[in-house]
């Protein structure tokens, strides 16, 4: 077990922990917005840590670039989808309130 292995194990474990926490949050939080918060945290940080942990085991620069591109794309996709879900939720709850007043 070299120092590098320890470093990798540490980072991947931290990443997995973030995913675990995110999943627990997704299941336990009360409403849409807090759930989105939990989910995006898991995506961003958890995946980031796992990618950092995996980089030393890649052999070529192209593979490392691919890993990082994957991470960046998932960041973009998850943030936009989180925004869309939240947007729709706010729109829906507003409509509901208006309806209530009328």
């Amino acid at each position: 077990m070299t120092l590098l292995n320890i470093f990798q194990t540490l980072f991947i474990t931290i990443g997995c922990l973030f995913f675990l926490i995110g999943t627990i949050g997704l299941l336990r939080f009360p409403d849409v917005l807090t759930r989105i918060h939990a989910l995006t945290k898991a995506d961003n940080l958890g995946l980031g840590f796992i990618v950092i942990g995996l980089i030393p085991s890649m052999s070529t620069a192209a593979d490392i670039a691919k890993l990082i591109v994957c991470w960046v794309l998932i960041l973009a996709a998850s943030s936009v989808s989180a925004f869309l879900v939240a947007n729709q939720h706010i729109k829906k709850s507003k409509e509901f309130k208006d309806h209530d007043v009328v």
Partner: protein
Amino acid sequence: MMWFDLALGLGLIIAAIGVFRSEDLFRAVVLFVTFGILLALTWLRLQAPDLALAEAAIGAGITGVLLLDTLGVFRQHEQDINPRSSSQLPDISRQWAANVLALIACISAAGLLAWSLFNTLKMPAPHHNLVTVVEANIAYSGVSHGITAVLLNFRSYDTLLEVAVLLVAIVIGIGLRERVTTSANATSDEGQSKLSEPPALLTSLVRLLLPLLLITAIFVLWAGSTRPGGAFQAGALIAAAGVLARLGQIDIAARVTTILRLGLTLGVFIFLIVAVSPMLTGKPFLTYPAGWEGTLILLIEFMLTISIGLILLSLFIQAPRPRIPAPVRNAIPATGPNAETNKGGDQ
């Protein structure tokens, strides 16, 4: 690693049971998408990266989009019409009969499967198996990736028929759409006005992702001759790009034009030409001339990618949609005759 496989297998079964047991359709569809992602992982564990790619793009991606879109259509339809007394009581005796039938079918299927699995175990390993046959002949196939060699050389007849099946599906899909459109006028226009203006963030993401997806599709296609990848996965990626473009309100394949029709049939057309042309020189159907295998396979795969992508995309876009509810565009009556004349050039 065995524990991982056990957990993954049980996860598949649990996700499937979740799909069957949930009364809410939305929940069932989401669990089904989860099932698809777990299945993609399973294919990786079975050392089938091609299948994992296809399953992730098709099973989890496109099927999920189609199902969710359908649920959206149902919801809109319900709002349009009326909350009809949908709690129609099921016929108790019929339901009971179905349960008994299901029980019998399950028990017999389970028995049959267990029996055949058991007998497979007792069989000795086959003397010569397909793995060695493929390995022995791959040098003559024109490509070095086994699955592409099987799909487009050794068993290309199956692939030809399979693409023909896809073509039949889209012909039926478009046929049904046109009948709907003439009575309910212009799906494409309605689709446009039905969706509200998409958020700027979504359109900019779509603009970023579209070229990337197309490049990835071409890469996957090119990789297919030496590595996991190929026409089906690339086609699925193109379809996914089209669906994304649709979400960003860039309309591809919204109307059935001649160009779209050409694109849909291109794959089968080129495949058939390549298949038939050796017969002119007296060779059997579907033999590639020596030395040209690689080039011809790549040509067919390229055309197939375009066709498969367009077929899957059109099956999504041309699917019947409800008419637009009257209040949104009260200027034109929804069934007015003038609405049909202003898009006569479409078909």
